[in-house]
């Protein structure tokens, strides 16, 4: 049987992935560069192709609240946002994770105001790592489509029951077109059973779905929430394996890697920039440089053990991210450094910060990072945080 392929944008791939997952409710508010996804879904609903309720809400704060309400009556629920909209949802994000409502969200990674910018970086979702949501970052439109289907299965698993955010780089992935393989509905149905949850309103088993807690039990709620996100590790790895069996595409769970086994210097990446890094690795390998890349897929739960083992042989490690936690370092770097410190990995670790507000990260930039890592591995002095491609003179 020939496989169905379409030339579509990342936003459209997400919409198709969501449609195939048969959600009951979609509640969203428009924001660039997410909007095309919800436009496509509203079209599918209005054309009758998707039997779901599309809720036009008055803000993102209402979108996440409506999504939570839908999940609380046992509906499979999707929402989507970006940047300011995601931040406006923040209160509701904590409500949804604390209430254990497995809502799935697509977030188009975009810069955060001020200065106001519609262009991409990863500061929006990385600033929300503590909101209790599972966070995955995809590299291309195919992975975006596939992860929507996986996300419902992971989030809704009884051991997890935690909302999940699928992140894709604004414009770089949302607005560029790729050939994407569209899974068969029957196969998706076999992979993703209908949503079943004990955590819902039910006339036969009446319950109160929101509550206050006191100092004597709050810690226990948070302990269970932490456990649920940790439980997601096994569940997402199983989902990845089963997805590969069913659809023939494997994403390697928590992390992916390319040419890392014998690499002397490594770059750790997040999201779409990984594709460019792979190309640079090929070019530099052809010249005899032992370079490699590790792509973090999940930021929560965090791939601690995988990073510890994959980096064990490297002589210098760089973390490339479109993020900065002002006054310290990039958030991805902090997480990676913490994981490696636990196993006493003391090789030099650099934090390459750039691509903010949509600035391109070129192959030349990445080559310079690898070359710098090689010099640092050979003993050159270095500064931990390196804002690359800075257009201003500094006295640092």
């Amino acid at each position, binding site marked *: 049987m020939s496989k169905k392929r379409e030339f579509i944008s990342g936003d459209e791939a997400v919409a198709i992935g969501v449609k195939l997952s048969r959600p009951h409710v979609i509640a969203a508010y428009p924001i660039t560069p997410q909007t*095309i996804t919800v*436009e496509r879904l509203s079209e599918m609903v209005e054309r009758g192709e998707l039997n779901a309720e599309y809720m036009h809400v008055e*803000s993102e704060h209402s979108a996440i609240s409506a999504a939570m309400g839908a999940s609380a009556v046992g509906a499979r629920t999707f929402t989507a946002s970006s940047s300011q909209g995601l931040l406006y949802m923040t209160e509701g994000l904590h409500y949804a994770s604390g209430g254990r409502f497995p809502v799935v969200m697509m977030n188009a990674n975009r810069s955060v105001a001020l200065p106001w910018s519609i262009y991409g970086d990863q500061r929006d979702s990385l600033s929300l790592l503590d909101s209790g949501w599972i966070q995955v970052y995809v590299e291309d439109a195919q992975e975006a489509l596939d992860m929507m289907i996986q996300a419902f299965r992971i989030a809704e698993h009884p051991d997890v029951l935690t909302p999940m955010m699928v992140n894709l780089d604004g414009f770089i992935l949302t607005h560029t077109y790729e050939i994407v393989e569209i899974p068969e509905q029957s196969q998706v149905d076999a992979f993703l059973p209908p949503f079943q949850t004990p955590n819902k309103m039910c006339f036969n088993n009446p319950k109160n779905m929101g509550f206050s807690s006191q100092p004597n039990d709050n810690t226990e709620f948070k302990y269970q929430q932490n456990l649920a996100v940790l439980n997601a590790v096994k569940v997402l790895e199983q989902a990845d394996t089963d997805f590969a069996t069913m659809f023939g595409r494997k994403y390697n769970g928590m992390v992916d890697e390319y040419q890392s086994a014998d690499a002397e210097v490594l770059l750790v990446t997040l999201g779409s920039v990984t594709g460019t890094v792979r190309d640079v690795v090929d070019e530099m390998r052809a010249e005899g440089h032992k370079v490699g890349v590790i792509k973090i897929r999940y930021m929560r739960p965090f791939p601690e053990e995988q990073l510890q083992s994959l980096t064990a042989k490297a002589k210098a490690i760089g973390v490339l991210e479109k993020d900065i936690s002002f006054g310290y370092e990039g958030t991805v770097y902090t997480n990676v450094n913490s994981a490696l410190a636990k196993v006493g990995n003391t090789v030099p670790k650099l934090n390459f910060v750039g691509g903010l507000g949509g600035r391109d990260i070129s192959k030349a930039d990445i080559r310079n990072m690898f070359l710098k890592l090689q010099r640092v591995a050979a003993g050159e002095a270095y500064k931990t945080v390196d804002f690359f491609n800075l257009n201003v003179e500094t006295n640092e």
Partner: protein
Amino acid sequence: MSDIKDIIKDENLVYKKTKVLTDNVMHYCPGCSHGVVHKLVAEVIEEMGIQEKTIGISPVGCSVLAYNYLDIDWQEAAHGRAPALATAVNRLHPEKYVFTYQGDGDLASIGTAEIMHACNRGENIVVIFINNAIYGMTGGQMAPTTLEGMKTATSPYGRDIKLNGHPLIITELIAQLPGTSYVTRQAVHTPAAVRKCKKAIRKAFENIGQKKGTSFVEVVSTCNSGWKLSPVKSNEWMVENMFPVYKPGDLKDE
């Protein structure tokens, strides 16, 4: 034939662009009402001699870049929060002329709470409200102000009242609030309408000097890109479809 140099003389001047408008080329689509309304606000500011005393609070939406076109001080607000910022700026600088410039996605959707409370408190500010019944900047999605049956990017078969509720006639609600002194609905689709709209904007700004509380000027506007109509057709469509729901005229003038 006389030389063009002989024609360019002060005594021959019949129209001049106000100096409050910058020379920047506007990013607005041809036919969009924003350009005209920007010009009217700029002309009123120049004619009242308040360029150095006016502070604009810009929204999120197409007019987020208004600071490129009106040469006054501006402050950017998060989506919908302009009235809260305007309140603070006005309270600390009560002698200044503070106004918000907001679209329907900003004012009548995500920012409904802020506009209601600012108007109810009677903050001594002007609100310019551009209502084109659509989210223009994100590409034409359904807004609370979208008309019944109106097709948008997220209501491709038209707004269904049962599913999506009624168009929000927010200006009538605002007029109910005792904090407002002047509430009017205008348009800029004909030269006469433009002149009338300018008078309304002028009165609103003069009310600030008289400490009259909140003055609210809705401008029923076109979004020909979002509506997928030519500028001329957009104006016709607006008169035919928007005006019966959003009726032009003064709602309150105290």
